[in-house]
């Protein structure tokens, strides 16, 4: 009984940790050393390149500003392993895809942002690593998550 109650307590604590933990899935650095959670952005543009590689996925989007000038933004997502298990594949984004990205700007002011979600050409808005974490306390299964 003591073992069971201890485990129950551990599960509750783990659930709390899970709830309050940063939602970003950063493989090899903390979120706050690179990105500003108080500087959210939403940008729409055309994908120019997609790198489905470790330690984070990167994709690049040409975004047309109000002045008509096009800027190529870089977006960083979660580790490919983690988002693969959420349904991502190396061809999930293709050059020419028009997407809307929600994220947080880099602290250094460059045209770089952490990507929270991407709205794909088919209308689905999917997490790119800043949403549900694959390795949750209740387990996960490949392809079980809808991105």
């Amino acid at each position: 009984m003591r073992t069971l109650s201890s485990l129950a307590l551990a599960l509750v604590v783990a659930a709390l940790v899970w709830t309050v933990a940063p939602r970003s899935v950063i493989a090899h650095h903390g979120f706050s050393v690179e990105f500003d959670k108080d500087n959210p952005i939403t940008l729409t543009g055309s994908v120019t390149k997609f790198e489905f590689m470790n330690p984070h996925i990167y994709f690049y989007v040409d975004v047309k500003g109000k002045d008509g000038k096009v800027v190529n933004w870089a977006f960083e997502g979660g580790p490919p392993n983690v988002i693969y298990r959420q349904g991502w594949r190396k061809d999930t984004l293709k050059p020419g895809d028009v997407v809307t990205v929600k994220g947080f700007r880099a602290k250094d002011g460059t045209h770089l942002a952490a990507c929270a979600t991407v709205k794909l050409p088919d209308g689905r808005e999917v997490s790119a690593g800043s949403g549900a974490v694959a390795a949750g306390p209740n387990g996960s299964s490949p392809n079980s998550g809808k991105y």
Partner: protein
Amino acid sequence: MSNPIRLTNLFAACVFSLLLSALGCGGRAASGSSQATAPPDFNGVWSAPFTPDLSKALGHQPPFTSYGAARFAKEDEIDDPLTKCLPIGPARGIQAGIMPFQVVQTPGVFAILFENQHTFRIIHTDGRTHPKDLDATWFGDSIGHWEGDTLVVDTVGIDDRTWLDTAGHEHSDQLHLAERFQKVDNNTIKWTVTFEDPKFFTEPWSVTLPIARQNTEIMSYSCEENEKDRAHLRRSKK
């Protein structure tokens, strides 16, 4: 003496008993920590809830020494060894590796294969002790023994460049890890890790997390493959 059949049976029983004992099946051994039944099977892929800040799981900050508190106060996530793609360390690999790990269990070795950076721990369960002259390594020297359904692991000699978590809890070369992996059911391990380090903490402190079986396989990983972040990192503490 008058019954050779009975003597033969007695001799055979003795040989059988010795054989069982030699195979580790002869009941409680001299150490008192062995068991009559085989240890549970931990083989498989597992993951603990992502716990990048151990103080959240503990409910408060660890019991720092003044030195440990000063170190933590000035520590910055930019100095995290993982930002340099250095190994994650023995406990952090379990509680904050983000990615799952695989257990490969043999009679003398309990191996933990981390997907994170494709690193691994070898926990010797063959009765050996820690080497006397131990050089620090990224995952330390681990020995373990079975107590019923629980693997009890003792780890020393851990390189003090590893962090205990992403929040910046550090340790010295005197860190001693005591872990208990209890097989609660086929899909759950109750993992308790105790951190003991007289330079950083006034007393040992422990965290317990449930480790869940994963319906997946560990995948490839290379931290340096397309590393682009370091140039953008900014120090948040002065």
